[in-house]
């Protein structure tokens, strides 16, 4: 009967109830949906970044990150790899690479690129390139003159598959080395910048061209759970001799990490803003509802109702309103997320700006249980807390002054 009474009370003024419900619904919807978009963007950014040659973690010679030159290569990668085999969890993949700055040129154009020498089979399991070639073919194990280039680079150089591209870089002896490669495949990446930056040849070809023997620049590891690198990084660092440095993707991509932090903060700020607006709405409306019923509260007190029961009654009314709003808000948010997750939101209209920020071209919202739970708890718990104010007001009217009120 308490619920029945509360239920009927909230429908005494359907318009007011509708307003409060709409506020809660919009609030919950925007919190859940915006949260899902942010998670979607973050997840995609992290996944792209990890796939774009970063991996879950990387091993280098200590000087390489500050100065990525041949001198800072690892001369005995096999000793690292034997540790990897012992230390990494089942399902982890790794690939060693040569990675140096180079100049690529043809008759029409010339520009700086990153020359990546890969082990084609191993690389395919670690980074995006294995699945990114959409014209021509991927590299073979024995492919001393084959090169993969990005779609955007191909356009810059006004060239196409089958044509030649000359790469120049400093070799191990400090001399300029160069080699003519033939474009065997063209890849596409999430970002045009990636397509312009990286060209791929076989590791053997790069080692031969640069006269570096069996040395490699880096070893990238992809863990079964790609984003969880901390434990494995610590284990590797302690298992490896001191001349190797292990870094997780978070350390390798400080900008992405910073962006994720901004993302988390903006969601928190949004939650706060929504809540402040909604909280004021709830307090206001409930206060109005309470003041309209002063006489009734006086009557109830005269009948022997204790202040605690009156508080419980008003809070029950808020609880019902909040529950209805939350249910509808979640339903709406889930539907929107499901629909948008299918089509995605295409940001290519703003692509230049978005790409500058390193954002994916199309974003897909992703629901995370903990975000949905947080949004709901914020609305429910804080909603109930703010409704205590009107509830205490209602309980404080003395029966005599309340009954005198008409």
């Amino acid at each position: 009967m308490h619920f029945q009474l509360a239920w009927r009370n909230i429908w005494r003024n359907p318009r007011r109830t509708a307003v409060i419900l709409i506020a809660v619904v919009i609030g919950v919807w925007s919190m859940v949906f915006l949260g899902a978009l942010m998670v979607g963007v973050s997840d995609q950014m992290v996944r792209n970044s990890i796939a774009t040659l970063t991996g879950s973690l990387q091993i280098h010679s200590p000087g390489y990150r500050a100065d990525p030159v041949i001198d800072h290569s690892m001369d005995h990668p096999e000793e690292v790899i034997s540790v990897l085999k012992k230390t990494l969890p089942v399902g982890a993949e790794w690939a060693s690479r040569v990675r140096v700055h180079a100049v690529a040129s043809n008759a029409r154009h010339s520009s700086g690129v990153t020359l990546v020498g890969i082990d084609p089979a191993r690389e395919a399991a670690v980074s995006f390139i294995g699945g990114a070639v959409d014209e021509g073919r991927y590299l073979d194990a024995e492919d001393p003159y084959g090169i993969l280039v990005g779609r955007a680079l191909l356009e810059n150089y006004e060239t196409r598959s089958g044509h030649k591209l000359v790469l120049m870089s400093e070799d191990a002896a400090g001399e300029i080395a160069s080699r003519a490669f033939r474009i065997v495949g063209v890849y596409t990446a999430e970002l045009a910048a990636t397509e312009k930056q990286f060209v791929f040849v076989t590791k053997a070809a790069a080692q031969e061209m640069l006269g570096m023997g069996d040395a490699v620049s880096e070893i990238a590891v992809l863990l079964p759970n790609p984003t969880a690198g901390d434990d494995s990084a610590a284990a590797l660092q302690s298992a490896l001799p001191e001349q190797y440095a292990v870094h997780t993707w978070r350390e390798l991509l400080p900008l992405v990490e910073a962006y994720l932090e901004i993302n988390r903060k903006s969601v928190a700020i949004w939650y706060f803003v929504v809540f402040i607006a909604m909280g004021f709405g709830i307090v206001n409306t409930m206060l109005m509802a309470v003041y309209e019923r002063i006489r009734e509260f006086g009557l109830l007190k005269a009948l022997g109702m204790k202040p605690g029961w009156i508080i419980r009654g008003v809070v029950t009314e808020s609880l019902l309103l909040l529950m209805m709003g939350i249910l509808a808000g979640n339903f709406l948010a889930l539907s929107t997320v499901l629909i948008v997750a299918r089509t995605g939101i295409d940001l290519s209209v703003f692509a230049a700006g978005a790409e500058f920020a390193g954002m994916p071209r199309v974003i897909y919202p992703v629901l995370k249980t903990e975000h949905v739970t947080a949004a709901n708890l914020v609305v429910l718990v804080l909603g109930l807390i703010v409704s205590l104010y009107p509830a205490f007001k209602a309980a404080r009217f003395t029966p005599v002054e309340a009954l005198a009120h008409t």
Partner: protein
Amino acid sequence: MAIVECTDVVKTYQQGKVDVRALRGVTLSIDTGGFVALAGPSGSGKTTLLNLIGGLDEPDSGHITVDGNPFDEMSQSRLAELRLNKIGFIFQAYNLIPVLSAVENVEYVMLLQGVGAGERRERARAILDEVGLSDMYNRRPAELSGGQQQRVAVARAIVSNPALVLADEPTANLDSKTGNGLLEMMAEMNRTKKVTFIFSTHDQRVMDYARRLIRIQDGRVAEDVDKAA
């Protein structure tokens, strides 16, 4: 045995800078089973006295005891319990909770008292039958006439067999025929259920129903007539 005892009760209201002396020392004793009218012109202090006897307000000085409970020693929450279990109230108007039906209004007090659902409904219907509203159980207050609403209020006041029912001008908003009907019904409840009724009025015809008539004037007892004696 006295159910209500007031000794030197004084109550002063502040209205702006003026002190309004609503009660200037009221001493009276009302026996169990009485059917008592507090009569007096508007502003004489009837409502103030009834509110004090009901524990809705505190006197500035003096003592009030209801059913052996001295109010000076009781907390607000004990007073609320006493009202819930021992005292029924009937006001001039707006006695009912608008969103509850007649039978639910009567049940609500029993709900607060902790009476089980089945018994609640049964007792609420029985008492509505007694006050002549057997076909109005499910009407909301807005769908009842003024007289019917007051009958529901009486039913609610007596449903849990209180020691005392306080009625502040219960007939003031009713035409005289309906008012007489209500008073006859209250008198009937007083006889059959041995519930003490104290009601206030400034209407001579209403006073005629009382077995004891206490006239209040300017916050004092001006006359006290026990017609039974």
